[in-house]
Structures are given as C-alpha cells and as structure tokens.
C-alpha cells in the first residue's frame, strides 16, 4: 500500500466530485420528467401510445448502458454529415451532451416503470372520492394520483438514484474526467489500481450515503403517519409498545 500515492491522489479525485454530481443530477432531473410522461403513456388506452412507451422502456432496459453511451457518442461521430444537416452535431460533438443524453434516456426507462407501479397502486376508493369532489384530468393527477404514487414509488426510486450515481462512472469511457475518469488516468500513469480505486470507491460510498439519508428524510416528510410515534428498534424487538405481531402502534392503528 503506497500511502504517498493515496495522499497525492485523493485531492485530485475529490476535485472531480462536481463533475460526477453534474452528470447524476442533470440526468436524474431530466429523466424524471421524461419518466412521468412515459409512465402516463404506458397506462394510456391508446394502443399506439402504449406500444411506443413499452418499446422505449424495453429497448433501454434491455441493453447495457455502456453500449448506449458508445452508440450515442461514437455512433453519432460516424454519421456526422447527417447530424450536421439536421443541426444536432453542435450538441453531439460534446461528450458531456452525449453522456447526459445516454444517462437520461436510461434512467427515464427505469423510473417510468417505478412511477407506473406507484400510479397503479393508488387505491380506487381515493380516485372515486376525488371524482366525487369534482376533480378530473390534470387536476386529479396533480392533486391526488401523483402525490400518492410518488410516496409509493420513493423507496424504489431511491434505488434508481443510487444506481445512477454509480452509472456516471461510465462517462469516463468517452473522455469525461469525473471521479472514475480521473482515477483511471492516475492508474495509467502509476500502475497502482488498488490505492486509487479505494479512494474512488470511498467517494461513491460517501455520495450514496448522503443520497440514502436524503431519500429517507423525504420518505418521513411525505408519509409522516408511518413514522409518527414509532417505537425504537429495540422496543419493537422486545415487543414493548407494540401489538403481538410486532407492528408499531401507528401502523396497526391505521389497519383497524
């Protein structure tokens, strides 16, 4: 273990964290908006809309992200005259644009399925109640369906955020110097993969620790009734303050 190398490498890798975060946050943000649209199409009665959304999700979930990145980056380079004609080359020339596009399209496919599951879990009774109050269309979606669906989808979507943070490392294959890219560059010069990848791994660990805390906080904020008066883990283990099934009082109250 080369401690000197660790001392020299970690500031370089830490300095690359903003690049990793820009890739993750921008693709997650754009991908989330896309995903809502795709999920709605997936649930639509229009066969054509359903087929388009289904096909999209199928293609992007079933091919490796690395292949998608290479196809968008080197593939567009091969058809440069065509993309120049339609005015897209200005964007495709930039590796950042290609990386964010690939990550966005990829996460949109996964997130749309998570959101679809959330929407389908909204109880019919609540929809009927909303309709009885005169809500329909976009208002119904915005006020009732989406808020309930997102609560259901949040744990699954938290997974997707973590996967995306790690997926940004693939951008290093198209010359972007985010955390993994910088790590690979140092390794190529020093031939010491262990030291450098340990630091890179620790950085992803730290980022995803923050992500899990934020998602947990959001879960509590959005569904406080599930967490209110929750007995401690120890109390639940010993059965104190819980019913015989070990449920917390808050949840068992809801069930009654």
């Amino acid at each position, binding site marked *: 273990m080369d401690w000197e190398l660790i001392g020299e490498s970690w500031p370089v890798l830490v300095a690359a964290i903003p690049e990793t975060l820009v890739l993750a946050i921008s693709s997650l943000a754009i991908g989330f908006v896309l995903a809502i649209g795709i999920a709605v199409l997936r649930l639509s009665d229009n066969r054509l809309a359903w087929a388009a959304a289904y096909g999209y999700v199928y293609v992007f979930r079933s091919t490796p992200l690395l292949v998608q990145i290479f196809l968008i980056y080197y593939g567009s380079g091969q058809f*440069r005259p065509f993309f120049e004609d339609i005015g897209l080359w200005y964007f495709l020339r930039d590796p950042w644009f290609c990386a964010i596009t690939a990550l966005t399209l990829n996460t949109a496919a996964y997130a749309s399925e998570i959101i679809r599951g959330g929407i389908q879990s909204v109880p019919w009774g609540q929809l009927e109640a909303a309709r009885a109050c005169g809500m329909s269309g976009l208002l119904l979606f915005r006020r009732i369906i989406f808020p309930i669906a997102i609560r259901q989808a949040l744990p699954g979507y938290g997974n997707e955020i973590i996967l995306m943070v790690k997926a940004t490392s693939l951008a290093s294959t198209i010359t972007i110097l985010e955390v993994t890219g910088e790590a690979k560059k140092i390794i190529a010069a020093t031939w010491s993969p262990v030291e450098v990848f340990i630091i890179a791994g620790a950085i992803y660990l730290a980022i995803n620790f923050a992500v899990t805390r934020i998602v947990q906080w959001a879960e509590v904020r959005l569904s406080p009734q599930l967490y209110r008066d929750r007995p401690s883990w120890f109390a639940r283990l010993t059965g104190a303050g819980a019913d015989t099934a070990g449920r917390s009082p808050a949840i068992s109250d809801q069930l009654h």
Partner: protein
Amino acid sequence: MKKLLTIVAVAMALATGQAMAGQYDSITIATEGAYKPWNFKDAAGNLVGFEIDFAKDLCRRMGAKCKIVEQAWDGIIPSLQAGKYDAIIAGMSITAKRQKVITFSRNYLSGGGGLVVMKSSPLAGFDAGIKFINLKDVDAGEKAALDKIVGTFGGKTIGVQTATTHENFLREYLGKNVTIRSYDTQENLDLDLQAGRVDAALASMDYWVPLLKSEKGAKFKHVGPQMSGGPFGAGTGVGIRKADQALADIFSKAITAALKDGTCEKMAVKWFGYNNCSAP
C-alpha cells in the same frame, strides 16, 4: 560436468579478458529477434531488420569483428551482466531505471511524436518550417517552430492517449494554449479525430507512419515537425555493461558518424518507411 564447467569458466575468462584489454576488436551483440521491423527473423530463420543492418554498419566503422546472437527479452540484461555478450542492440529505450543497472551508448533512434489532422481540416496546410525538433536542447529555429505550433493550434482541441510521453509533452508545452482530451485507447482517439471532435491528435510516429499508409488512415495527414527528446524520452541506444564504458563511447562515436553521413536515414526509410533516426 566438471570438464564442462572448466570450459565455460575458461571461455568466460577469455571473453572478459578480451574486454578488459580494451581492444574490443571482437564483439558479441545480442538482439531479441522478435520485434519487427527493429529485429526479427525472416522465413529462412535468419536475423534481419533495421538493427541487424545498423549493427553490421557500426561494427564496420569500429573495425570490430561482430557476432550477433539471439536472446529472449526478459533475460537480455541479466545475460549481458553475466558476460554472455558485450552489447544489446534490440530496440531498447534509454530509461533512468535501466541506467541504474547498465550503461548506454548515445541514442540512434528517436521516432518521437507527431501531430496528425484530417486532410479536410484547415490545419492540414500547417507547416512549422522545419522537419525535426529535438527538445533536449532547443535552438533558435526549433524555438520558432514550437511558437508556430502554439500559434496555430492555440485554442484548438488536441487528443492524446492517456499516460503517454505524448500527453506529458502536451501538458508541458501546450497545456496553457490548447484543450487536451485524453483517451484510454489510440483507436478511440482515431475515431474522434475522424468525427471532428478533436482538431488534431498527437502520437508516436512509429504508430502514425504505417496507419497513414493504410486505408484506415487515408483521411489523415501528418503535419508539423517530428518531435523527440525532452518529455518524449531519450530514444533507443546500445546497452552495455557499466564496466565497459569505453565500449559505449566507441559505439557512440560510430553512431554519430552513421547519423551524419545518412546511413541511418537510408536504413530507417528502408525498414520503417520514414526517418526516425536521432539528430546527429
């Protein structure tokens, strides 16, 4: 067995005795025989290549009787130390690490690096005025050519394979003026040069020359001077035991003569397709 050992011991004593005498009129040279076109074996099993021709020419100049033997690469320095032969001519780069163990003659090959652009690029007409730059000691003409490169390529994007001497050169000499894009493989760099994502690519001339002659490199063009020395490394030299510094000096003298009268260039063009000889 004892007899054999005695013979070996006597032979070695004779060999080193000869070396000690400082005569060097009979030299055994080792080469690898598996590094085309530096040194390799033809269909009949004879050692051929640039270094075979070059070694014969050096021996003629040194007035020495030479014998060229084959030696696998991984044992090539230990066997030199053990006295199996007196010199290594096997495309061996002069590096600080090797210089701790053996000594070297002066360099004879330094292909170095060169810039390549698309034939269709406005940079394709670039001419720095000179063909070679040795960064070890830059004269006025070379300085002017370097400034010309900075002036023309300033603000452009240059691609390079990561962790190479070429990348070191870019960072040291053009780091402030150009955008450097580092690639994990040379193939990916070539793809992006073709796509126009980088304006120029810097790599070893030993790589470019065959590529530019092939169909794959048909759209590429080498521009500007061939750059060697400095960050590109010290080039290729003859490896010799530290105790035989005198022999290294004799080799260096012969090499300089072969570089000056164009013998090296003639052989390099024959075997490599371009002149990658060191500056005399």
